[in-house]
């Protein structure tokens, strides 16, 4: 029963990780940058929601929606100010610049809000079904994640902009010949990535307290997830997310949370050594 409970929680956690992995893969597959400050985007989202809900007493839902919008905007600004000007620069410059944004964001939050943990007081019940205990916050996060992923899938495969995003990811030059403006696609992708980070932040509201180093832990987990599934593969990211989610939660329950963390990375190392491109990794396209 404990295992089943764990399994369920693992799946729920995996759902939210999947949203983050999706955002990372989208950005990597289309804009071809490694989004180092993605975890920090989630952190900023949580801080914004904290300010709006706790300080300014906005309704929770509105706070979340505004939080999502602001993170999307942050991502766009970072794209215009840092990413786009460096797209033709050597990779090392890109990496360092993106890592710098990461540090800037962390320290900005440290300066503004201090080093302490800021919890957002949202209390959701725990469901008791027989011997299972499931937190509603996790359920909402999971359901929300599935819905988000479903909508994204429809958007990417049924709309012109979605198809344009695929086209740029697969063959940028050919996409230009289809009258697709790659800059617009990049902007749309970065906005989407930011939106997904903001959505993840909204789901984390009743689960985590935010602090200036919140991003770090998530960035590593998100990257492990993405590389495990195959960098640039949207489906791979989702798969990777569930694997990491389930493994981490199961092992945490059976052993301890430290071992749980470790287990995920051990699995990751094993897969990377056996199959470096990840489970569903491939060249070109998302």
């Amino acid at each position, binding site marked *: 029963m404990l295992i089943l409970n764990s399994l369920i929680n693992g799946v729920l956690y995996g759902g939210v990780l999947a949203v983050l992995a999706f955002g990372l893969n989208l950005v990597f597959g289309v804009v071809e940058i490694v989004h180092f400050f993605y975890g920090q985007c989630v952190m900023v989202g949580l801080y914004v929601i904290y300010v709006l809900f706790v300080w300014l007493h906005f309704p929770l839902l509105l706070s979340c929606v505004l939080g999502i919008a602001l993170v999307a905007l942050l991502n766009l600004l970072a794209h215009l100010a840092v990413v786009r000007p460096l797209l033709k620069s050597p990779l090392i410059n890109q990496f360092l610049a993106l890592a710098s944004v990461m540090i800037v964001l962390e320290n900005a939050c440290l300066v503004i809000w201090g080093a302490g943990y800021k919890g957002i007081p949202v209390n959701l019940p725990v469901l008791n079904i027989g011997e299972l205990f499931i937190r509603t916050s996790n359920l909402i996060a999971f359901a929300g994640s599935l819905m988000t992923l479903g909508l994204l899938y429809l958007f990417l495969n049924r709309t*012109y902009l979605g198809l344009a995003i*695929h086209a740029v990811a697969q063959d940028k030059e050919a996409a*230009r010949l289809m009258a697709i403006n790659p800059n617009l696609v990049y902007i749309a992708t970065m906005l989407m990535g930011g939106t997904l980070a903001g959505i993840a932040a909204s789901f984390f509201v009743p689960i985590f307290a935010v602090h200036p180093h919140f991003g770090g832990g998530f960035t590593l987990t998100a990257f492990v997830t993405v590389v495990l599934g195959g960098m640039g593969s949207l489906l791979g990211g989702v798969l990777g997310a569930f694997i990491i989610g389930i493994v981490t939660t199961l092992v945490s329950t059976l052993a301890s949370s430290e071992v749980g963390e470790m287990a995920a990375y051990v699995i990751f190392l094993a897969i990377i050594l056996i199959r470096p491109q990840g489970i569903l990794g491939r060249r070109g396209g998302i």
Partner: protein
Amino acid sequence: MITVEKIAAGYGEITILKEVSLQAGQGETAIIVGPNGSGKTTLLRVVTGLLRPFSGTVHLNGQRIDFEEAHRIAGLGISIVPEGGKVFPRLTVYNNLKIGTYARRARNSFKEGIRTIFALFPILKDRQGQMAGSLSGGERQMLAIARALISQPEVILLDEPSMGLAPLIVNEVFRVIHEIKSQGYTVLMTEQNVKKALQVADYAYLLESGTIPFHGDREAFSNNPVIQKAYLGI
């Protein structure tokens, strides 16, 4: 109609096109033939905006386009069938055609356009849900042509449509090109298979070492002894 005037172009220090002038009039099929490395693909890259020329101009229906971004030029109506049947491998046949109508002018006509395309290319209708990357070479070429057609083009460019295809498939491709021509499209085509290309051409240009030493209508071109000897094996 498309007009290329005194184009010089190349890559960095290397000049591929020295001075090229040619045109395809409204409803005309103009072909550019010549050996490997003569600059045929470079010329098409200049026309589509993927390569900025060193000097010279390109005009589409009187509007100058050589300095525009490639996606804007495509939006104005220049549609190319690139060399080698290039399609988006991880999009379905259907979505490849759909993305062909991304340009504003073509979006509203997608529903009607796809009906026409499926009538013209029944094989594409059969395979519409398949990933384009899993099609055979000939089928991919057909898809690439269909994609150019569905985009409501002002001018259709074809870069060596017979390249890498078996003779039977080449015949199919040229049957389609002939159909395109008879529907009144303006076509500018580069080809190495001079014999086949001349069958659909109204006008022909010889491109050799970055210049056009000779051009003429189909009759004049076919009857030129130099062309006959070097390219038609006569």
